[in-house]
């Protein structure tokens, strides 16, 4: 097997995995704090793809010429708006049901995801949408008999994924917001007794997670160029799988799970068979969960007495 093909498949997997990881972070943060899955998260990622196209068009229409400035502003605006979406989901689907059975918010979140999907379908149309190619160019690395190529957009994806993870980890470990998050995660009632507004913290976590999905939405839209209202479903499921694989509740775990999943899909598809790549990816998930039920980096749940 040629070295450059293995290298190229690893690059493909790494990029796919970074995207999964960015979305998985949203799942894992929400789970870490309130122990529930935000089923509307995939749809927020889908919404962010549309927001990206809208902001790109708007900023260009306002006469902004410099591409880096346009992209950076688009990223910020998309993050801000998806954060707003995340906050709204929490307000509508989770907060009113806090304290009720565990299953109730799950169902309301599935409802929200259907609402978002159909809202976008009706307001934006069911057709594929696209953006023009903005970033071009690629790096070529010489490897044995051929080249491994990585486009500039793909480099940006990996860098932004790493940077976002670093920032998020820093927030969690070195700011008062992060301390409050961790306190809420460990014992919500105790944190409240000590003056932490847990309602506000949970809303912030939803918004932060959604902003990360927004980052993924911008990057994916730049990379693939086209999207429709249905992209949130498949990607959402994959990202959720990545979060579970890495250990749900763990930030580095989400990223690791994403990369493992992306590499598994890519390498299996590349060297064995594309038909069964998902089967292989999920088989890995099952195997990991058999030996490490809390995922690769997850901590086993401590029974509170």
């Amino acid at each position, binding site marked *: 097997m*040629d070295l450059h*093909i293995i290298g*190229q*498949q690893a690059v*493909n*997997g790494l*990029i*796919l995995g970074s*995207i999964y990881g960015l979305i998985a972070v949203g799942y894992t943060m929400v789970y870490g704090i309130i122990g529930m899955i935000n089923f509307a998260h995939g749809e927020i990622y889908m919404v962010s793809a549309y927001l990206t196209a809208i902001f790109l068009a708007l900023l260009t229409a306002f006469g902004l010429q410099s591409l880096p400035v346009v992209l950076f502003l688009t990223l910020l605006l998309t993050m801000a708006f998806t954060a707003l979406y995340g906050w709204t989901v929490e307000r509508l689907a989770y907060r009113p049901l806090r304290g009720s059975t565990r299953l109730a918010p799950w169902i309301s979140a599935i409802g929200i995801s259907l609402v978002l999907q159909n809202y976008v*379908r009706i307001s934006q*149309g*069911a*057709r*594929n*949408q*696209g*953006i*023009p*190619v903005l970033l071009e160019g*690629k790096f070529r690395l010489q490897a044995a008999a051929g080249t491994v*190529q990585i*486009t500039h957009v793909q480099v940006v994806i990996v860098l932004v994924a790493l940077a976002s993870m670093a920032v998020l980890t820093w927030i969690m470990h070195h700011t008062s917001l992060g301390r409050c998050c961790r306190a809420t995660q460990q014992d919500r009632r105790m944190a409240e007794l000590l003056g932490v507004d847990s309602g506000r913290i949970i809303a912030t976590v939803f918004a932060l997670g959604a902003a990360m999905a927004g980052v993924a939405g911008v990057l*994916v839209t730049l990379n*693939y*160029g*086209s*999207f*429709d209202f*249905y*992209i949130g*479903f*498949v990607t959402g499921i994959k990202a959720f799988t990545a979060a579970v694989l890495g250990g749900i509740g763990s930030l580095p775990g989400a990223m690791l799970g994403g990369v493992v999943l992306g590499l598994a*899909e*890519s*390498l299996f*598809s*590349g*060297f064995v*068979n*594309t*038909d069964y*790549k*998902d089967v292989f990816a999920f088989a890995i998930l099952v195997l990991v969960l058999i030996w490490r039920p809390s995922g690769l980096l997850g901590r086993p749940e401590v029974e509170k007495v």
Partner: protein
Amino acid sequence: MKRWHGGLTLLLALAMGMAGTSRAWAGEIRIGVAGPMSGSSAAFGEQLWRGAQLAAKDINAQGGINGNQIRLIQGDDVCEPKQALAVANRLVDSDRVQAVIGHFCSSSTMPATEVYDEAGILGITPASTNPKVTERGLQYIFRTCGRDDQQGVAGAEFVVKRLKAQRVAVIHDKDTYGQGLADAMKAHLRTLGGKEVIYEGLTRGEKDFNALVTKLKGLRVDAVYFGGLHGEAGPLVRQMREQGLDAPLIAGDGIVSEEFVVAAGGPRYVKGVYMTFGADPRKIPEGKRVVDAFRAAGYEPEGYTLYSYATLQAIAAAIKATGSTEGTGLAQWLHDNEVQTVMGPKSWDAKGDLKGSSYVMYGWTEDGKYAEVQ
């Protein structure tokens, strides 16, 4: 008390709804138009709906069918077999349609047509090309398009004789239509003495096919045949070009929509993409007036729009001639007679397939349009 009132209102509404239904029976012929009106293939649903709509308008303007006006009822199956079954049952049981135009995706058409057949309702698909659609011995099911075993043959002939490709990849989307088409192409490729270097399926709904593309590149393929729809064909061809794989992509009629260009990320990526489709219905002289009418309304009648128009014409002709909407009579009449449509005269064989359907190869060009390959 409040709840009881709600129930009463619902009952009243139901009763009124039923009254409305029964009143509508006189002087009106109800025809279902079913296809993916939403979802990633909604562009095709729009083609079916637009075609049928204009046909109904034209026929109604000329006094309808034996004095009865046509009323179209839309059914949205999102190209999902489960949804198609629900839509079919709804059209039959609650909308009480007398004939159906549809569906689009073969995987939806197959279960849905069983419902129509059981209810004795004429069902004509303008677009489902999987051979099995008419191979199940269903009495009331017809189509106004070709079959994938003809389409796949045309694709294989083009790849071998015109492109002279030696290393052919056959890719499909694991759906009834896509895989069926890919299988038909593969079978004929082998009878021509060729053999595919790879035969694999990708997942519908995904956008990242880079791993597959790298693999194709490693296999040094010189032509890629794809059985599937534009939602996946677009990203696939874009990623091929981005990775520097310039082999032509040949697909079937699942990408006959300008939306393919959007899905690919712009016209620059669609050069070198070919597809099989019936002789361009827009160029058939009988259809000129209808094509002009569509264009005047600001809609380009691409893809299956005129097929859908012709399908309603066939249904109307059968109802007019037999003076009834009863399925057995309509089906018998269509088997025995020729219908003048916007796409020229059409007649059907015993299975419900068109007699003499021909596929032509089209090529996409850098300006995002398609034209027949000479």
